[in-house]
């Protein structure tokens, strides 16, 4: 598609967070590497998992200035000055439920650091608050759409508004809900000037973004398994950088001197992460097809991805709707030494009797089995007492009413005196439960755009 006679220089996109709660010292080495490359570069942070946005919205209810990534300043403080000086642009969904608030916080941070005020763009349009949008959601979800308990409804925006903001000169682009790969596709569209229907190239950049969006999950994080998958330097994992070429193909690498590894196996695990049909990975920007994708080690900690194809983007956008639905409670107590497992199992029986009729209760025997099993306990029933000597009983429930959920925590606590011998270490938790519904709405019902701060 490019009419240029010389190929556009590589675009380097680094990712310094894979979720809200990731290491806040990640960005430094990524920015060092981006600056050392000397070419066009973008730093991204992906901090907005599905649930994170709903929690941010709840935070904003109690504090109108909150609702963006709580660690925003911690993430940016070590690198903001160098990014502005070196021309590394920053793109992130750390705006969460309050992108404008995040932008103001960044401007204040720049002032604190004594650096010039950056040009900050705020992407809007993901929050579906307008009456006609709510009507569409009601139609799509039906009776289960309960507006009285609604926390938030947000569409997954694509890369267009991000690209537009960068073309307009934004140095920092703050978004709320966008599809995670769009954080990379936006800069690629702005840099390479691809046509909006250049599906193959957009799909390739999408998969580059997909490999970046979980941070170290492509550089050895979430991968290590001693004796099988040994990863050096887990305490200092390097966060990933994609070197994207004019065709959208990329090389995944990481900053020199950091821990972790990038090899064909780390890239294969991440390319399939949260992908369902590999011939149709749906995003707002494109339908990516990785059935014929190839990965190749082209140097130390350098893996090239190729063979990705694209098809026209979907006519609809995905929407997540969160509402408050009842209460969740859990509690734990531990047993150790002789017959510990038998005592933990007896404690579970006591709770089953005491809480009969109070709703579903899951039972886990941590140290015996606690994760693979189903909530109904079919798996646990098949596990005989193996005589484990260090077992932590965990029970959990959901209830429409707070009082019903609290019954579980009270009964669990009462096991201190009324339960089997030697129980210790009681912990309980109670929280309001968020439930999610997803639906699709027509693309033209969502109006995404951006404005520059001031």
């Amino acid at each position: 598609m490019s009419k240029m006679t010389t190929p556009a220089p590589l675009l380097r996109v680094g990712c310094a967070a894979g979720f809200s709660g990731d290491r806040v010292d990640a960005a430094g080495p990524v920015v060092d590497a981006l600056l050392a490359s000397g070419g066009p570069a973008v730093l991204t942070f992906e901090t907005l998992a599905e649930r994170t946005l709903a929690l941010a919205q709840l935070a904003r209810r109690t504090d109108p200035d909150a609702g963006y990534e709580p660690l925003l300043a911690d993430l940016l403080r070590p690198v903001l000055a160098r990014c502005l000086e070196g021309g590394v642009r920053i793109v992130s969904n750390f705006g969460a439920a309050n992108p404008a608030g995040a932008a103001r916080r960044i401007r204040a941070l720049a002032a604190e650091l004594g650096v010039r005020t950056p040009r900050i763009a705020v992407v809007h349009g993901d929050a579906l608050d307008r009456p006609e949008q709510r009507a569409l959601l009601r139609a799509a979800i039906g009776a289960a759409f309960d507006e009285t308990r609604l926390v938030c409804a947000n569409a997954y925006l694509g890369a267009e508004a991000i690209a537009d903001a960068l073309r307009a000169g934004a140095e920092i682009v703050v978004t709320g809900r966008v599809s995670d790969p769009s954080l990379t596709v936006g800069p690629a569209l702005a840099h390479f000037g691809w046509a909006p229907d250049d599906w193959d190239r957009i799909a390739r950049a999408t998969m580059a973004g997909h490999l970046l969006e979980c941070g170290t999950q492509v550089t050895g994080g979430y991968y290590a398994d001693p004796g099988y998958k040994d990863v050096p330097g887990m305490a200092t994992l390097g966060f990933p950088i994609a070197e994207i070429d004019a065709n959208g193909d990329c090389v995944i690498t990481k900053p020199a001197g950091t821990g972790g590894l990038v090899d064909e196996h780390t890239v294969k695990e991440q390319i399939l992460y949260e992908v369902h049909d590999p011939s149709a990975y749906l995003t707002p920007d494109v339908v990516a097809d990785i059935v014929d994708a190839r990965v190749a080690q082209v140097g130390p900690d350098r893996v090239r991805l190729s063979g990705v194809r694209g098809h026209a983007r979907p006519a609809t956008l995905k929407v997540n709707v969160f509402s408050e639905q009842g209460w969740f409670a859990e509690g734990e107590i531990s047993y150790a030494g002789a017959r510990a497992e038998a005592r933990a199992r007896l404690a579970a029986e006591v709770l089953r009797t005491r809480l009969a009729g109070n709703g579903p209760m899951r039972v886990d025997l941590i140290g015996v089995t606690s994760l693979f099993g189903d909530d109904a306990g079919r798996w646990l029933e098949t596990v005989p007492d193996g005589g484990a000597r260090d077992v932590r009983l965990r029970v959990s429930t959901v209830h429409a009413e707070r009082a019903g959920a609290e019954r579980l925590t009270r009964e669990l606590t009462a096991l201190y005196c009324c339960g089997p011998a030697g129980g210790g270490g009681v912990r309980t938790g109670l929280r309001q439960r968020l439930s999610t519904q997803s639906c699709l709405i027509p693309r033209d019902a969502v109006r995404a755009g951006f404005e520059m701060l001031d």
Partner: protein
Amino acid sequence: MPHGRHRAHDQVVPLHRIAHGRTGDKGNRSNISVIAWHPDFWPLLVEQVTEAAVARQFAHRRPTRVVRHLLPNLHAMNFVLDDVLDGGVNDALNLDSHGKSLSFLLLDLPVRVPGALVRHLAGPGEDDPEG
């Protein structure tokens, strides 16, 4: 087993000796990748790690559908298991409401490896006293 020439050296091993994987989730649906450690294991994965075998391994979670997608260039397959997460991240009572650990349940699946390929097995093996 038919009488193959490597029959005497066949080994039944957990899937994690020949493949690795990772779990992702969306809603009440889990996807689990299975990636061959060595290209020579690929035909064996296709033959033995079937939709039916995976559905059996997850029977207690009552999958309503198990679909296997093949990516031959990557020597990888992607399983999509519907309705196995007790409602998913916001609804499940499990500590691991995402089902992040489930790749390791799949990787426990027993597979038969012909003798000629035993040298490519990953890891020390759980029954190996030297391991």
